[in-house]
């Protein structure tokens, strides 16, 4: 990636982070996922705050290292990467662009405001990412990664992952 030499360092850092794929869903960048919470350039040092999706997400440590390495490689010496827990990550922070990328990848994106609905345990109409049918059912609330559930489309009969609401 080539940058104009006098580009705003914070904007340049955002671009670097936008190029880091999520280790488990590489179609999304960590920025699409909404786990980069803050980025601050004080004129000398860059500070980045990231938040884990799930408490036990095995990718969290890898993401932390990838952020450090990518920033160091781009010349941000001694960038401070910290983890923030509060406010807790929610699927509502996945960008609109990220939702579209998920759909094209074959994963049904979480419905907006779904965290609240998950709270009350009401059933969601999850659209099949392939044929957009609403006639789908949940096979398991847990899937191949902590953030996904397994669904099945009753029209095109394909199984698919649903990015579960949190």
């Amino acid at each position, binding site marked *: 990636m080539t940058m104009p030499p006098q580009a705003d360092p914070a904007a340049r850092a955002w671009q670097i982070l936008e190029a880091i794929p999520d280790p488990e869903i590489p179609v999304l960048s960590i920025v699409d996922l909404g786990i980069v919470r803050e980025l601050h350039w004080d004129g000398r040092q860059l500070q980045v705050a990231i938040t*884990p999706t*799930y*408490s*036990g*997400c*095995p990718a969290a440590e890898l993401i932390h290292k990838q952020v450090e390495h990518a920033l160091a490689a781009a010349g941000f010496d001694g960038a401070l990467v910290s983890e*923030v*827990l*509060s*406010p*807790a*990550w929610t699927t509502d922070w996945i960008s609109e662009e990220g939702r579209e990328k998920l759909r094209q990848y074959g994963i049904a994106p979480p419905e907006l405001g779904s*965290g609240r609905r*998950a*709270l009350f*345990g009401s059933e969601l109409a999850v659209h099949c990412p392939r044929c957009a049918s609403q006639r789908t059912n949940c*096979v*398991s*609330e*847990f*899937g*191949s990664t*902590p953030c996904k559930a*397994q669904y099945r489309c009753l029209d095109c009969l394909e199984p698919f992952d649903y990015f*579960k609401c*949190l």
Partner: protein
Amino acid sequence: MAVCDQQDLFTYLLRLGDSGLVLGQRLSEWVGKAPMLEEEMALANMALDLVGQSRMLLSYAALVEGKGRTEDQLAMHRDVHEFTNPLLVEQPNGDFAHSMARQYFYASFAERLFDKLQHSADTQLAGIAAKAVKEFRYHARHAGLWMVRLGDGTEESRDRMIRAIQELWPYTGELFETDELDRRMLEAGIGVDLHVLRKSWREDLDRVLGEAGLPLPADDAWMHSGGRAGRHSEHLGHLLATMQFLPRAYPDAGW
């Protein structure tokens, strides 16, 4: 608001962290032999959530203690009597009905506990709780659905679920025990009034058992106690032997 003693906060965090760690280790024992693939993933995912929450709690506990210990040292280099989890979570997996009843009892409790802890005066604990409560909601719902499915299933599945509830019920009282430490933490605005949780925990249990057509256990049943004070059943030692073997045999081993 009263000032909280650091030793109190350390012990309080340790209790929360130990409970998740031991239950997470128990659930991970299902990996490779769950009744079906979807359930295998569910059990592994729940174990991962629990261990992840415990890592945060134990890291913070180590920081509060200020003696240079790490989360790994707390998890891997303490012995049975130093663990402060309630007895329920160390009970063996038994059959699938046992594991689901245990999971429901604990997750439904933890969901309520961490919901309150989100508003703790300790902001780090509040942050950990805000993540954990969302995860426990899934665990409680998942395990609750299995209790209904098994209770309202075949004669065999129903018998097994009844047996699981009978055997595990005497371990549920300890979840709501309130000791001096709990009282001090409540006074400091950090902890939770466990008595308040019990009512809604019991209501949700009655709803699940009602749907499952299962008999309701008696509120005044005799209850086991002692886990939080380090008096454990013989099962915990075996669990720790498996969990702690590697870092004890190879103390320099790292990830």
